[in-house]
């Protein structure tokens, strides 16, 4: 097998693992997840890390195809960074699964990195070597850096405790 084919094979295997991890990651009901994320954000406010958030954030919305979306259109960190995220959940026979998410952190001026984006695409792409389903963008880079599958609550925690504090400082 050529090295090119072997790399493609390895990338496909990584995507298979991603799919397996997603299929195993049963989530809370969307309303409960909404409440958990809301209280997490409000505790960041209590600690002085974030500016006061709207009590209605994140908002739930039923969208096409039996998918429910949790959206936080804008939350501000006290140090100037801004966070947006949306998480799409799909109800399957076994429970709720994550279908797609987008976490966007816009870091404050003065940082060497202006933003960090963490995406889970809705479907596996045709070129897993170039675009892994779950990936991260750093700054304005178009590079899709593979990102491990994890519970969106954990991603929010990583953003609040690591990315926002440390990236580009």
């Amino acid at each position, binding site marked *: 097998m050529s090295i090119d084919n072997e790399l493609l094979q390895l990338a496909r295997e990584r995507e298979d693992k991603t799919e397996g991890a997603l299929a195993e990651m049963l989530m809370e009901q969307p*309303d409960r997840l*909404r*409440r958990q994320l809301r209280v997490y954000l409000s505790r960041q406010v*209590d600690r002085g890390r974030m500016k006061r958030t709207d009590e209605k954030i994140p*908002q739930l919305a039923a969208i096409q195809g039996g998918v429910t979306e949790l959206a936080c259109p804008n939350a501000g960190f006290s140090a100037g960074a801004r966070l947006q995220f949306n998480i799409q959940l799909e109800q399957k026979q076994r429970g709720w699964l994550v279908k797609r998410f987008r976490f966007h952190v816009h870091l404050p001026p003065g940082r060497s990195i202006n933003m960090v984006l963490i995406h889970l695409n809705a479907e596996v792409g045709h070129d897993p070597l170039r675009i892994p389903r779950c990936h991260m963008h750093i700054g304005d880079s178009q590079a899709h850096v593979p990102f491990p599958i994890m519970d969106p609550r954990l991603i929010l925690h990583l953003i609040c405790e690591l990315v926002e504090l440390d990236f580009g400082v």
Partner: protein
Amino acid sequence: MIDFSATTAFRLVRQLAVAGRDAPSIYLLVCETAAMGAVRTDLEAEVQVQLGVDLRSLSSAEVQPERLGDVFSHGTAWPVILITLDRWLPKLADSFDRNIVLLARSGTVLFVAGRDIAERVLAAAPNLRNRLTDILLITPDETFGDPPA
């Protein structure tokens, strides 16, 4: 007619979380009758998510005035009891009033009632009224936002 400060289950339970389990409290939560089910659901979910305990929810019919000890005896680290006063039961209001010390030692006690019954309870149970942490107008959570464009 009395005006009460407005709250939601989210805000109320945040207050409870900040005060902590060592601060017993009794709240009278006034709400529209039609919204009572939604408010109860919100309270149950918020108590579980924010305090990590199960809310014990009872209707007034499930509380026997002569056996309040059964309701307010608790085996959990942070008992949170919700009693929905969905009908006017003078004997029950009187029993709450006479057993106010028991209520005040029972962790967090939440009474939910429509405005009419809330005002009757306040008039008929002066000891309870005096020991209330607060009287709040509670509305259900606005769960769903606008659909995304």
